[in-house]
């Protein structure tokens, strides 16, 4: 048994694809039209090529309510690991990304949190 796919709900799939392949630097793997929406996945050029992140529409009202509540409570819905959090923080800020938490040491990791412009807070962390 292995983890092959994980997913994030996004408010708008066009915007999500632009954000996740733009400032975040992921690579588009699938983009397949399915009726009103699309099956979109991205992979990380820095990580295993066969682990995909799906950018799913948040069209289900239950999903939307969950997403908004997590956002308003300031809770990130995903965490990505980086090698140099200070450099990533500067790079992302220069690309217009807004952080709700600048890099902060938290015991064994340093974390930072930003908005993905699609209704989610995302955490990045660097291991000490």
């Amino acid at each position, binding site marked *: 048994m292995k983890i092959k796919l994980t997913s994030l709900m996004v408010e708008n799939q066009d915007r999500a694809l632009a*954000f996740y392949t733009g400032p975040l630097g992921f690579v588009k793997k*699938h983009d*397949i039209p*399915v009726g009103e929406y699309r099956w979109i996945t991205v992979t990380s050029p820095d990580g295993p090529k066969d682990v995909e992140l799906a950018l799913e*529409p948040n069209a289900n009202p239950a999903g939307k309510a969950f997403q908004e509540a997590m956002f308003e409570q*300031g809770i990130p819905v995903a965490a990505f690991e980086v090698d140099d959090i200070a450099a990533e923080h500067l790079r992302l*800020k220069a690309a217009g990304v807004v952080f709700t938490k600048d890099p902060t040491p938290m015991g064994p990791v340093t974390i930072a949190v930003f*908005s993905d412009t699609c209704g989610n807070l995302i955490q990045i962390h660097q291991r000490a």
Partner: protein
Amino acid sequence: MRYLGPVTARAFRRLCRARDSLRDVGDARVSIRDIAREADISPFHFIRQFEAVFGRTPHQYRIDSRIERAKNLLVSGELSVTDVCFEVGFSSLGSFSTLFANRVGEAPSSFRRRYWALGRPPAVQDGSLYPACLALMWQLPAAAAIFEKHPVPEL
């Protein structure tokens, strides 16, 4: 893109509250300037910060929310198109229909007819998307062929 400083916890909470106000269609006539004032942020910074955090300007966000609410009301079928128009904060049926058509790709009445013809509300249809998506991941050519044969009606 322009450099933006970090959003403090306080400013973040205010932006979230502002988003709630913008989504509340009852407030459709409150100006963006007033919402910025309520959030205690200058209108200029409010618009910039809101867009950087939520991916849309406050104005776009409000319009999207109203169209979204209109779609739900149209599908639920209890109100006439005119009632829906007023319910989501428009005062002119013409401007509502034009805006709706621009965003959704068809007039409110034809949107409603098509969804009724499907015989199920959008929430049910959207929910049915997820298993299909998973099927797509595993059997891309086969599943894609199925979707070509039996397309989910497009909006």
